[in-house]
């Protein structure tokens, strides 16, 4: 029997959602994990959040559009973000063509080329959705490699790293070099690629280093993180403890109490309808909703090399 009435759930849902997308200098950034089964509206939610994230500017005493950094994927929906402009950052050695639903190249995109993560920081458009595509051949920054080796007590480090770790480098440098009062939200879809459960070899060390060095101080650094995946069990358990907000979509599994979940009824998310979500923060939870978006209309990123190969 639910002891908490619906109106209380609705109130809490609205409050926690508002806190997730509106950042104040005192409260800092938010780290959120969201879980949804395939096709239950995860991408549509991320698109809506990207368009609505805001921060409070103390000088103007107004809510401003917050800069969003979106990890681009081969098939993505960042072009559906409403209310914010978007630009794309790609590595200077990569040639990517963006195709719309019908296979026609999209030409009116603002594209910036980068060599290192610092180039992205220089070209970052404030108040925009900045989509970045990881380099195809990724050599990790030497300074960073040295730092990781020291912190993790490892001797060897692969010469060519998995491109997904470019995100680590980007977060590391943004945390160091961004302006003190600037708020940035990272949106990472399919986060299990980055924070894989039970990682092996060097990946174990990288994830451990990232948790210790970057994730720990995200809130204070005014960086927000929204990590989306299909199930909480796909995410590294060490990362799970750093999540301040947990969002569940219809039929998502709710983690046990040891992962700091206050929801005792583990089938709660089963009762949600499409377009609704359950949101949890610091022992409180509630429900809210968002408008559904037709995500069939996706942008396809085609790497020219690949294109030649499959022609």
């Amino acid at each position, binding site marked *: 029997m639910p002891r908490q009435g619906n109106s209380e759930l609705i*109130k809490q849902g609205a409050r926690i959602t508002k806190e997730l997308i509106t950042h104040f200098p005192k409260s800092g950034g938010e780290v959120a994990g969201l879980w949804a089964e395939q096709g239950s509206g995860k991408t549509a939610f991320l698109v809506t959040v990207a368009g609505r994230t805001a921060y409070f500017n103390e000088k103007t005493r107004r*809510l401003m559009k917050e800069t969003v950094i979106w990890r681009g994927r081969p098939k993505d929906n960042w072009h559906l973000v409403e209310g914010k402009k978007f630009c794309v950052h790609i590595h200077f050695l990569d040639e990517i063509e963006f195709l719309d639903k019908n296979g026609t190249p999209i030409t009116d995109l603002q594209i910036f080329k980068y060599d290192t993560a610092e180039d992205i920081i220089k070209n970052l458009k*404030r108040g925009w959705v900045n989509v970045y595509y990881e380099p195809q051949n990724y050599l990790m920054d030497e300074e960073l490699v040295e730092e990781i080796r020291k912190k993790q007590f490892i001797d060897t480090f692969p010469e060519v790293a998995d491109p997904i770790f470019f995100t680590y480098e980007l977060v590391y440098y943004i945390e160091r070099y961004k302006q003190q009062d600037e708020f940035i939200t990272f949106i990472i879809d399919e986060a299990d690629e980055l924070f894989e459960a039970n990682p092996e070899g060097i990946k174990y060390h990288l994830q451990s280093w990232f948790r210790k060095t970057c994730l720990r101080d995200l809130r204070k650094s005014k960086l927000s993180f929204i990590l989306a995946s299909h199930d909480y069990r796909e995410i590294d358990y060490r990362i799970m403890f750093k999540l301040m907000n947990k969002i569940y979509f219809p039929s998502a599994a709710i983690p046990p109490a040891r992962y700091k979940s206050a929801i005792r009824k583990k089938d709660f998310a089963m009762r949600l309808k499409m377009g609704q979500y359950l949101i949890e923060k610091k022992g409180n939870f509630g429900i809210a909703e968002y*408008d559904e978006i037709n995500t069939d209309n996706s942008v396809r990123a085609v790497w020219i090399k690949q294109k030649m190969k499959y022609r």
Partner: protein
Amino acid sequence: MASQPVKEMFGQLIANYSLVSGNYELLREAEIYLSMIPAMLEEKGKLQEYSTILSDLEKRYDSAVKTIDDFQGGWKVSRMQIRHIRKEALKIALKENLVVLRQDMVSLNQMNRILDDPEED
């Protein structure tokens, strides 16, 4: 006049009991109706109008309390009395607009709609 939060709170209290099946829990639900509705009607200046119905509901509540522990079948009569109280009380509450039974869910799309552009500083 009852304020919106009071109406919501009343709705929430009722919602908490919407799925209960225990005899004592049903009695408690009836107590909520019989304590909140007269108070809210008095505030509205309409207590006199409903005094006959309310005194009938009070009598039914008293008889339900007496027979709720009667395992010879009296508890069944009690439950019927309580159901009658629920029906009549809800009728008054809805007619006089004393309760908010359902609150519309808040949409993420309604939040932060008007934002300033930092590039234009």
